[in-house]
């Protein structure tokens, strides 16, 4: 556990001494701010329209603002994740520091966990910026905070599983660019898998759609924790980290 922390601290440091962290956070703040702005504007407009028509019905901030913002954030995450994971191992392999890590008295899994936790923490920092937007809602209204937190839990789980896959891909190459592009392709694929359910209802389509990361995020955005989705995300995380460990072992034999 101590070794995991050593790696974790080093990784977090290297995120924040380079411009990556700040660049990603600024980029994300801009997009999340825009989504928040458009969602609240829509909410206000709809509210006024329904009042003018004289048949005002209750509108939930959770449903009209928080949920769309969280859904959009989950999609932006797909674009950010490759940028977070691409350097994790590829950079170490290119610069030769991989040899230092692997010849130190520390287990492979400790290296992997340290790096993955750091990536998750980095992603959480980025997500926290969108939380700042949503907190404004609490100053003017009384949104329910519990479903919102569940939404963030979902974002973290989704992020965690994609980060684990990104970690694996970064371990298979010495080039950050290759790692980034490949992770992005996989993220995108896992996203669009869901689309088959739009035109096909056969069993295979259900299976394919089940594999999409986004299908499993929807219940979270509504404030629902479904065991099925939690299991899906956790197994994705375990799979990604397991593959990373296998990949480390196999580079050792192939060199």
């Amino acid at each position, binding site marked *: 556990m101590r070794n995991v922390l050593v790696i974790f601290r080093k990784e977090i440091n*290297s995120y924040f001494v380079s411009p990556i962290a700040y660049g990603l956070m600024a980029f994300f703040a801009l997009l999340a701010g825009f989504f928040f702005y458009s969602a609240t504007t829509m909410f206000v407009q709809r509210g006024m329209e329904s009042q003018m028509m004289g048949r005002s019905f209750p509108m939930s901030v959770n449903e009209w603002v928080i949920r769309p913002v969280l859904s959009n954030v989950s999609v932006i995450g797909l674009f950010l994740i490759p940028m977070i994971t691409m350097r994790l191992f590829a950079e170490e392999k290119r610069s*030769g*520091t991989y040899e*230092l890590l692997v*010849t130190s*008295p520390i*287990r492979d899994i400790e290296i992997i966990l340290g790096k993955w936790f750091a990536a998750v923490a980095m992603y959480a920092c980025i997500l926290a910026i969108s939380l700042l937007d949503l907190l404004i809602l609490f100053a003017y209204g009384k949104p329910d905070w519990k479903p919102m937190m569940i939404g963030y839990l979902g974002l973290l789980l989704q992020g965690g599983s994609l980060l684990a896959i990104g970690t694996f891909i970064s371990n298979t190459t010495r080039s950050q660019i290759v790692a980034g592009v490949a992770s992005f392709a996989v993220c995108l694929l896992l996203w669009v898998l869901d689309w088959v359910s739009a035109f096909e209802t056969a069993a295979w389509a259900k299976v394919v759609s089940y594999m999409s990361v986004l299908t499993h995020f929807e219940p979270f955005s509504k404030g629902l924790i479904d065991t099925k989705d939690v299991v899906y995300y956790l197994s994705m995380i375990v799979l990604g980290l397991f593959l990373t460990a296998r990949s480390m072992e196999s580079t*050792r*034999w192939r060199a």
Partner: protein
Amino acid sequence: MIKVEGLTKRYARNVAVDNISFEVQKGQIVGFLGPNGAGKTTTMRVLTCFLPPTGGTANVAGYDVIEKPLEVKKRIGYLPETPPVYPEMEVGEYLTFVGRLKGLGGAPLAGRVKEVSEQCSIADVNKKLIGKLSKGYRQRVGLAQAIIHNPDVLVLDEPTSGLDPEQIIHTRDLIKSLSGNHTIILSTHILQEVEAMCEQVVIISKGKLVANDSVENLTSRLRGGETVLVEVEGRDGSLLDAPMVQQKLEQVAGVSRVVFKHARESRTAFEVESLQGRSVRADVARAVVESGWNLTELHALGLSLEDIFLQLTSGDKK
């Protein structure tokens, strides 16, 4: 301290290390010598548990590299060919990180960082980013990193490559000063380095062990007799007939072989090899003068480690 038996490492298509065995005693400095691609780095990587061997065993500080890699790693300091440094870290920060990786912590770690910084003379750049350092400094940071946890065994892969002459001398002195408490294996293809630092030499070529001996034994074993360069011309400065001179030289007592080297202007040069343990310079000089020729040059060609190395690795042993 280090015991390697029948070590073999096979990659997909080629054999990098083929059935190598050697042993290193505690406190010794061993030079690992071989041309590029001979398998030096591979052997070192096996010792440091970076690569598992395909066959044979390697034992470091009493632990097998396959069965107890963590124990081996705790007792080994490794400087790969390119120092494994993070350019975005400061020197002190980096050494602290490596110290933690190796299991140190707290006050002892801070003490060790200071100690190794002074030992490797990098204390003055403690607060500098490694990315901004010169190659020489970076190499020393790499060395500091390797000794931070005071390992029993040090494995250094070409520790002086890319340094300027002053830095090379400094690094050699540093490595020598470490030899008391540490067992050191260093690889190089620079031969003076082995002559200057090592007690024992392991020479490998194309993955095979060709020699494993002390530096003195190796030089004296292979040197045999001495080799002398002789250059002669006629009394009146004319070019002499080479076969005739050669014949004359071959008759000198104690000469085992005469090889014609070259004829330039009026001078003809030969390499004269003596029999084991005989010195023939005086006799050769006398023979030349007695034949009425001018002796224009006569000097002994020392057989350096370089020659031995070439002899051994080119595969034609005398």
